[in-house]
């Protein structure tokens, strides 16, 4: 009986080792593909982004070096996501897209026209000084990034207040409830639906929106 137990234990350990080896090999191959993709990006002297979902951070990188790092508070997945290829940002979507100020200069003809009604002289209040500029605070904290392969990355701000926490919990519940509908809809259109939901501090979310531009190259580690 004792011998039989010993044999069973050895058999189990050999079997588990085999499975672990296969997993290791798969991980090593995925890492190799990712490193090769990153090396190719790093040699182009351009800015690229690494969404490290294991370490829960987003790195802004150039020449293989992280020049900024944003922590992620929570990562949720929906659908299959492979992490060993370079993806390109195809677009960003938010409820309120920040818009650039267009400086309108009157043409010489317009400038030459005398004003029908002279404009009221407004005394500038130095305390209410407003810049006509696109700044970090103008960026949304909640947005979606669409990649060239159809992957969606939704970014939501981490809740800070009690009411916001309740809203955030309800929102997450709705997210999980609505994703299957998207999967079915996309399946009917012969597409695969994948989405990653990232929760991060609001200021970091704004910085990510600021930095990710159309055409930016990104890598995922998951």
């Amino acid at each position: 009986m004792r011998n039989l137990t010993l044999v069973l234990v050895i058999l189990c350990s050999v079997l588990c080792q085999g499975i672990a080896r296969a997993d290791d090999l798969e991980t090593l191959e995925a890492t190799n593909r990712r490193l090769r993709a990153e090396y190719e990006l790093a040699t182009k002297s351009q800015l690229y982004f690494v969404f490290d979902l294991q370490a829960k951070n987003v790195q802004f990188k150039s020449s293989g070096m992280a020049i900024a790092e944003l922590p992620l508070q929570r990562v949720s997945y929906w659908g299959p996501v492979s992490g060993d290829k370079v993806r390109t940002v195809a677009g960003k979507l938010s409820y309120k897209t920040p818009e650039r100020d267009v400086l309108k200069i009157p043409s010489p003809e317009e400038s030459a026209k005398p004003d029908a009604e002279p404009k009221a002289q407004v005394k500038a209040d130095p305390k209410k000084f407003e810049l006509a500029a696109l700044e970090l605070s103008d960026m949304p904290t909640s947005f979606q990034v669409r990649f060239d392969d159809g992957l969606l990355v939704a970014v939501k701000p981490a809740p800070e207040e009690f009411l916001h926490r309740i809203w955030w919990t309800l929102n997450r519940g709705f997210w999980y409830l609505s994703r299957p509908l998207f999967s079915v809809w996309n399946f009917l259109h012969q597409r695969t639906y994948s989405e990653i939901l990232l929760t991060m501090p609001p200021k970091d979310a704004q910085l990510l929106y600021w930095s990710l531009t159309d055409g930016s190259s990104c890598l995922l580690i998951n």
Partner: protein
Amino acid sequence: MSAIVFVTLFLLIEVAGCVLARRQEAKPEAETAPPGARDNRARILESKNAALRKKLAGLAPKGVYVVIDTANNRVYMKKDGQTVREMVASCGSGNVLEDPVGGRKWTFETPRGEFQVRSKITNPIWIKPDWAFIEEGEPIPEKSAERAKPGEMGDYALGLGRGYFIHGTMYKRLLGRNVSHGCVRLGDEDLKALYETAGIGTRVFIF
């Protein structure tokens, strides 16, 4: 009755959606090799990955380099990965200027990516470009000498190429805000420190 049908249908779709989401992407060729060959392959991959990591690390700058955060208007002078000086700057406003006559368009944005210090100038003279005259509603001068504006760029300028510079400013109270036309403006002390530390070829990373 219709409510029951609706709920059942909804639940069915939910289950179907969950099943579809669980499907995995097609993985590259399944490993069918015997365990010995797998071990070999694993060893080869481990050494290849280590070599790739080393190659990647080798691309990073050695010594002094500069990182510019255009969103927070900060310039970091770094040495071997450590920040040696943090500076408040003014980066591009992101505004768009349209020429009412010629139809030309400019976007005042600080470019992002990797650059190098290509030139170092003391007492730089700003050669006022067309957009600056248009923005101020002034006629564009025909003589290039009329474009020269000494003193507007501060005591030093570090050229990054494509007409972009790190230079000084007369509007120091606006440091920390996005107000420039694409160049990176610094305060006098910071500019002097950067000018003295960064040599030609110093790498500049802008995000």
